[in-house]
């Protein structure tokens, strides 16, 4: 029987929410790793019971956990993320040069076909890969070694590599995003990287259209149409139809085009979801109304989805890795908030129910569809 497992990372531990295919009743497991910041948990597409989790605190640094049974038991694996060679420097907030320093793993992206291969996007921005189930990690240093690397500057949350998209047909093709450097793509498995920010405009920059320096918040892609990539940028929702080579703005009638996550429906590659946020200085929903906006036209034309979501006095945020979709039919959509709610919609966003109300601030939500 089909079902859904949600992997929820929070400021104070991880939670696993499971339901059958109706997605009506949910079992809540957790907190796992109570008290630790769980930036991200993710499952292997090749073996859904193989899970990886990023666990950290300011006191004790980074730990990585692995489960081989869907989250019932966990094993601590490797936590040494050593930059390749002499790390050098990148630009700091004040424009001075600053040494690259590993802080934490923001995002874990397992390979599509090998449960033991997993990529880690880290702060300060770099891409690491493990081919032994997380026991050891090697940097794909061609990315950080790009000539623009010394000009990368952190966003408010740090210089983080937060999004990793792997091409469904060719694992050597990947697209990643760094806040606040922008998008980079590789076609040779991570040896060489190409800045992919053509068409992005950031009014915060003296040169609005510079090659790097754009605060990209999140990317999403439907595997059936991998050359179409959607982006929630600091400001602006963007779309690419040439594999992230160039971008056009599709913010259309959104009440605000600032936000963090973007997601694509599993079966409708032109149906996308964002959560508009008032502004970069407020980080709350416009008018105190928590609204997911859905476009069925790949952008520009948006409708507010409000059924079941609070429409007054709501001032939570939805962070960049905190929205996900399942692959059931009809497709489900899920997101978590900084107020500790995890909302589920089993009907593509038409209606929403809070699975849980009072978790710690939610950092990430990943949906696994189980058969």
């Amino acid at each position, binding site marked *: 029987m089909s079902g859904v497992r949600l992997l929820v990372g929070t400021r104070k531990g991880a939670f696993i929410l499971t339901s059958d295919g109706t997605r009506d009743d949910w079992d809540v497991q957790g907190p796992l790793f109570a*008290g*630790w910041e769980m930036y991200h948990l993710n499952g292997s597409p090749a073996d859904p019971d193989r899970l990886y989790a990023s666990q950290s*605190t*300011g*006191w*004790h*640094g*980074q*730990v990585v956990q692995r489960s081989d049974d869907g989250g019932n038991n966990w094993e*601590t694996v490797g*936590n*040494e993320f*050593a930059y390749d060679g002499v790390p050098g420097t990148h630009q700091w907030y004040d424009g001075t040069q600053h040494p690259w320093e590993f802080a934490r793993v923001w995002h874990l992206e397992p390979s599509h076909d090998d449960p033991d291969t997993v990529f880690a996007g880290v702060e300060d921005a770099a891409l690491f890969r493990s081919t032994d189930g997380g026991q050891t990690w090697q940097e794909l240093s061609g990315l950080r070694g790009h000539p623009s690397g010394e000009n990368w500057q952190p966003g408010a949350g740090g210089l983080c590599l937060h999004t990793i998209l792997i091409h469904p047909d060719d694992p050597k093709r990947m697209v990643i995003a760094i806040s606040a450097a922008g998008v980079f793509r590789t076609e040779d498995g991570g040896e060489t990287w190409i800045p992919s920010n053509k068409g992005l405009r950031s009014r915060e920059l003296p040169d609005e259209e510079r090659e790097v320096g754009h605060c990209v918040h999140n990317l999403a892609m439907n595997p059936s149409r991998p050359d179409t990539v959607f982006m929630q940028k600091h400001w602006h929702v963007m779309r690419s139809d040439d594999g992230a080579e160039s971008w056009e703005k599709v913010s259309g009638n959104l009440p605000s085009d600032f936000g963090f996550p973007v997601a694509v429906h599993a079966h409708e590659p032109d149906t996308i979801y964002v959560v508009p946020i008032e502004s970069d200085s407020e980080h709350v929903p416009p008018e105190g109304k928590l609204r997911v906006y859905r476009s069925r036209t790949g952008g520009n034309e948006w409708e507010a989805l409000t059924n079941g979501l609070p429409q007054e006095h709501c001032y939570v945020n939805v962070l960049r890795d905190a929205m996900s979709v399942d692959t059931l039919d009809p497709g489900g959509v899920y997101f978590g908030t900084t107020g500790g709610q995890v909302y589920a919609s089993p009907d593509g966003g038409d209606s929403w129910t809070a699975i849980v109300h009072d978790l710690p601030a939610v950092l990430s939500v990943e949906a696994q569809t189980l058969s």
Partner: protein
Amino acid sequence: MIRVVLPQHLRTLAGVDSEVELEVPEPTQRSVLDALEARYPVLRGTIRDHGTAKRRDFIRFFACGQDITLESADEPLPEAVSSGAEVFRVVAAMAGG
């Protein structure tokens, strides 16, 4: 025999209850931590950084009621710690309000 007390998160991570007992012939901060990490590899990187072995910023070391964090890592620990009469305490500093 050296008795080491870990902060709660590290006890959970290492799967130990209260005190950890280690045999360390010439106990110093460095040799005790080396022995601790050898016994519990999951603690590598959580007290000292990988590679540099630099103490993490919010970690401190206490012995006999004294903060010995800033003493040399190769300074012999007090006799009371070496004999097991007193514990070597790894402390996660109070921070964050």
